[in-house]
């Protein structure tokens, strides 16, 4: 068990990879065995993630040096600079890992019946597992170039999966836009890595953070990194590709894509707080994040009101919700250099932003899955053609209501507990931000009620009289996420104490991250 924990960071990345390589040969022999392989490997990975989380909450940051004579030997003996790739898992990474393990498991279960009638399933599951690998790699790595490699794995498999249904032109265009944006973002990240490498001859994030000077080249590199990651998360001036790509993918993949955009957001936070934390011009960068975050919130929700396509409508809401996280963490970044303000509300703002990532990662995939269930039942994504579906799809209706209440921040549900944390702390920084947030929240509720009305309420339409509720595995997958929402709703303070505050502290405490790399010579 101890050895399992020691090696768990790389096992979490390598087991889905191994399963992906095995999926095709096994799938050619038997479909049941392939499905079992996918589910079992993802369950085992989820178990490892939770075991690692428990270890981190006891022992602090977990370090794993690949290919060294001992996994905790970060630098070669008698040498001060790390040479090998180091995986570094702290409170923030493991929170993202927990989210990703839950959502990917739910998405795999959902796919079992959602794509059961399509061709090319072996390759679909292979790519799904590769995407899981890419996501975990991005979250756990402590090396900039390795981050780029895993970013590309997640992007390429994601693009191929978006274009999975090749019968229509929309899916191909969505996939094409996604891969062009990912390729450009990836190359910008690579250029920034080159700029940093030119000056310090280092690729490790912790070691770079120790020596970084904030020269002109560092500023250009910071701008490139932030633009690239913001582009991947669909921040507003660069959001046009986002709904096109997210609305055409199979619903299970859309749920996972939401988390990959959170992973890119995590990478942006890692760059701002950990890599540049000591030298960054915090108020300027913080305000940039806040302004674009507000724009993202507002534009996303106003565009969503007009949408008739159910997945497109939800994609715009995803953009809008991502704005809350940028604002929350941006406020925390703006006061990073001021310990007093950081203690009074900065830490709470960061916690609110991170808590909102967790909540969004539960309810947004749930909503996308219900949207996929509607598509599964009716064969269309057009809201105006739906109606009266509550009569037939009881479970889906209940789950949709849970998701709606949660995304609009109705008091007892989990969306409220993170939004109130953001509102309270941001109000002390600048009240306008809170007011905008509340307006956006009201608009969200209004548009989701409208969509609910047009899809579920009213008389049964004749064309949907026949047919049954969606298959069991789709219900189970949605239940997993709904259970997450209910759990957070019931124990918000427990979650904040055990998961959110350690994650926020991990972002703020740059020294611990650096020490784990350069100080841990056994």
């Amino acid at each position, binding site marked *: 068990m101890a050895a399992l924990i020691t*090696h768990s960071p*790389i096992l979490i990345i*390598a087991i889905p*990879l*191994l399963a992906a*390589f*095995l999926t*095709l*040969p096994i799938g*050619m022999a038997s479909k049941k065995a392939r499905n079992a392989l996918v589910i079992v490997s993802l369950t085992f990975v989820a178990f490892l993630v939770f075991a690692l989380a428990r270890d981190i909450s006891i022992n602090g940051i977990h370090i*794993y*040096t*690949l*290919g*060294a*004579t*001992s*996994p905790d030997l970060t630098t070669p003996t008698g040498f001060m600079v790390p040479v090998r790739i180091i995986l570094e898992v702290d409170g923030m990474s493991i929170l993202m890992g927990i989210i990703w393990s839950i959502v990917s498991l739910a998405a795999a279960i959902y796919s079992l019946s959602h794509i059961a009638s399509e*061709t*090319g399933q*072996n390759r679909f599951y292979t790519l799904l597992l590769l995407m899981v690998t890419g996501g975990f790699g991005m979250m756990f790595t402590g090396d900039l170039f390795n981050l780029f490699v895993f970013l590309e794995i997640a992007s390429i498999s994601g693009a191929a999966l978006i274009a999975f249904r090749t019968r229509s032109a929309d899916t191909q265009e969505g996939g094409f836009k996604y891969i062009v944006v990912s390729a450009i973002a990836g190359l910008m990240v690579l250029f920034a890595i080159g700029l940093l490498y030119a000056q310090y001859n280092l690729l490790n994030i912790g070691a770079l953070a120790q020596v970084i000077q904030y020269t002109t080249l560092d500023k250009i590199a910071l701008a490139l990194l932030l633009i690239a990651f913001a582009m991947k998360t669909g921040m507003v001036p660069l959001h046009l590709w986002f709904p096109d790509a997210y609305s055409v993918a199979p619903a299970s993949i859309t749920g996972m894509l939401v988390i990959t955009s959170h992973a890119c957001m995590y990478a942006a936070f890692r760059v701002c707080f950990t890599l540049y934390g000591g030298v960054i011009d915090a108020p300027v960068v913080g305000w940039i994040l806040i302004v674009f975050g507000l724009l993202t919130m507002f534009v996303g929700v106003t565009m969503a009101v007009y949408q008739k396509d159910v997945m497109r409508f939800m994609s715009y809401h995803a953009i809008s919700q991502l704005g809350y996280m940028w604002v929350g963490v941006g406020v925390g970044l703006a006061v990073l250099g001021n310990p007093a303000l950081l203690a009074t509300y900065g830490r709470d703002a960061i916690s609110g932003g991170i808590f909102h990532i967790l909540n969004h990662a539960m309810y947004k995939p749930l909503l996308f899955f219900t949207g996929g269930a509607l598509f599964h039942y009716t064969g269309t994504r057009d809201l105006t053609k739906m109606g009266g579906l509550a009569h037939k799809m009881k479970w889906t209706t209940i789950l949709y209501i849970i998701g709606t209440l949660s995304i609009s921040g109705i008091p007892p549900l989990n969306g409220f507990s993170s939004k109130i944390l953001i509102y309270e702390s941001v109000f002390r920084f600048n009240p306008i931000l809170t007011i905008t947030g509340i307006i956006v929240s009201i608009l969200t509720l209004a548009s989701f009620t409208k969509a609910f009305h047009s899809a579920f309420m009213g008389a049964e339409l004749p064309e949907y009289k026949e047919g049954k509720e969606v298959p069991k595995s789709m219900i189970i997958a949605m239940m997993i996420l709904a259970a997450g929402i209910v759990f957070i709703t019931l124990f918000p303070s427990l979650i904040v104490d055990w998961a959110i505050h350690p994650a926020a502290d991990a972002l703020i405490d740059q020294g611990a991250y650096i020490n784990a790399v350069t100080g841990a010579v056994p």
Partner: protein
Amino acid sequence: MLSKIVRTVTNEFMLFILVFGFYIIAHGHLTPGGGFQGGAVIVSGVVMLLVAFNSQELKKTLHERVLSIMESTGALIFIALAFAGIGTAFCYNFLVGSPIFGRIPATGPNPGDIWTGGVIPLMNFAVGLKVIAGLSAVVLAMALFSSGEEIEE
């Protein structure tokens, strides 16, 4: 399908391309090259075959199913070699000092010895297999698809 002269020359040259690619893969730890480069050289030979003969003709000998399995095999060998070092750490080069590829060359310039490098030569072969199968499958699939031929799953 191109003329008989082209086809004959292609057939003859294919052997040299295979040998050269294999040489680049096998000497990856001594001279410039390695699995990716050698694999790409061999795939260029496959592309040459594709130009000289047409894609239907080539499909009789190179089947996607076989290529997919070859690629999976290469990937599995690679990750298995990485896993094999997990006694010390993942990706550990556990063959240095052992009888297989385990010799350590003299530090500084030397003429080179094929039995060095630990797992590196083995990994070069795994990567070479994977690159050959993967890129050929991509090229062949594109050629078949654009000529209107259907591909099996």
